[in-house]
């Protein structure tokens, strides 16, 4: 629906801002990719509301509301759009098999309720779920593949002992808990900015920084270092803007397909030649 509302001819980039609570980010990305030409760079993020997980609001030329997906398409021969995305998390502990899940809802890991595993690890902070679940994202990989995708918790269901994630949690994939390393998180922001510069070889005029809310909760007052390190790389000529998200959207590499990321700093840059 969103993709077909735009003229795909000569489209450079489509910037997506979506409700991150009601929308399954993986499905949103899949839908956009199916209906847009491969050359279009799809970037953006899922809006959040801090650690409340209640009511993320999105709007464009209107009062922001729940459940809204907003998109802006960019065209023009003189427009240059680049992107960069990086995390900085470390996996730890045993790898567990996803034994029961449905789309973005995870019920069981190794045959045990997923919520119980999180409660065990969080101890006294389990009462702060789903917010405290952001401290332990899951990194998942399909059997036989080495490609890792990070997924973060957006909600819990006490009755079903399940966890709701920002993107798909496929059955028979392997999942491993992740923990933060503060310096590597900040370095991740720097890597994202460097990647965006390398693609265009000059500093952008506008950079939209979309950083996962989990990073903000963890880094606390140090979260400003993310922006500082990016500012130092881009210099004072780049206008910086952005928000803390429940999911980030960008391609994985120059030729890679677009994916929903979690717990990353994802940057989209714009400049005119």
């Amino acid at each position, binding site marked *: 629906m969103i993709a077909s509302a735009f003229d795909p001819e000569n489209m450079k980039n489509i910037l997506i801002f979506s409700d991150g609570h009601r929308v399954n980010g993986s499905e949103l990305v899949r839908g956009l990719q199916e209906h847009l030409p491969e050359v279009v760079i799809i970037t953006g993020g899922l809006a959040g509301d801090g650690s409340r997980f209640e009511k993320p609001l999105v709007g464009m030329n209107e009062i922001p509301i729940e459940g809204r997906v907003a998109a802006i398409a960019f065209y023009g021969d003189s427009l240059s759009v680049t992107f960069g995305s990086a995390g900085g998390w470390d996996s*730890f502990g045993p790898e567990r098999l996803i034994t029961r899940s449905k789309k973005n809802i995870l019920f069981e890991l190794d045959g045990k309720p997923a919520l119980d595993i999180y409660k065990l*690890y969080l*101890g006294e902070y389990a009462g702060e779920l789903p917010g405290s679940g952001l401290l332990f994202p899951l990194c998942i990989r399909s059997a036989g593949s080495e490609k890792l995708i990070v997924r973060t918790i957006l909600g819990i269901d006490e009755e079903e002992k399940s966890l709701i994630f920002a993107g798909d949690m496929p059955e028979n994939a392997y999942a491993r808990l992740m*923990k933060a390393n503060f310096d590597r998180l900040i370095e991740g922001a720097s890597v994202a900015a460097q990647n965006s510069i390398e693609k265009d070889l000059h500093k952008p005029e506008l950079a939209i920084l979309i950083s996962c809310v989990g990073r903000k909760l963890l880094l606390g007052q140090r979260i400003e270092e993310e922006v500082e390190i990016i500012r130092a790389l881009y210099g004072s000529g780049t206008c910086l803007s952005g928000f803390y998200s429940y999911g980030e959207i960008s391609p994985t590499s120059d030729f890679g397909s677009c994916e929903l990321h979690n717990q990353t700093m994802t940057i989209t840059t714009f400049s005119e030649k």
Partner: protein
Amino acid sequence: MNKLLSRQFKKYLGQAKAFPPGFDQFIAAISESYDHFERDRKIIERSIEISSNEMIGLNIELRKEKEELGIIQEELNFLFNSINECLFSIDMHSHQLLRISAPCEKIYGYSPSDFLANPELWSEVIYPDDQRMVNKDLRDLYEGKPVWNQYRIVRKDNTVRWVENRIIPTINSAGELIRIDGVINDITDRKQIELDLERSVSVLEATLE
């Protein structure tokens, strides 16, 4: 205020009461970062402890499984070498004989090490007139079909014996034959009775005609 920060205040600033304007906010920010640090440390320490216990648990489980597998392996080896039939397995990618059980010596006159040293030996011992028939049957294995056949072999002492061979193929997801497992037994006595019987029937039929 964070406990450690409060102690540091007392230790380094004594009972100082007057602070510059805005100082409260500054102290609150420091106190918050102390709390934040302590909370993260607590969570990380807890997660390392739980994860280490999980890893130790998995390690114990793996060791136990390994011991159990060892016992099963011993039992299988005993069974493998104690029955009268000769069991064998061949890796069809490398055409290497993976294993062959001890009764092969009774059937062929050659020991398992003779077969392991010469991958072509099993083919070389087939009686020349039966060679083509055996090769034709083996083609079925590449289509995933089990093979059951009877043919003659030439033992090490040059005597000729009849054997019965049953082979089960294993095909991978790409449709390639990757392994065969088989059972061979000596059926010479049975075959001799069958042949004698056939001969008697022929003689009887000829006489009746």
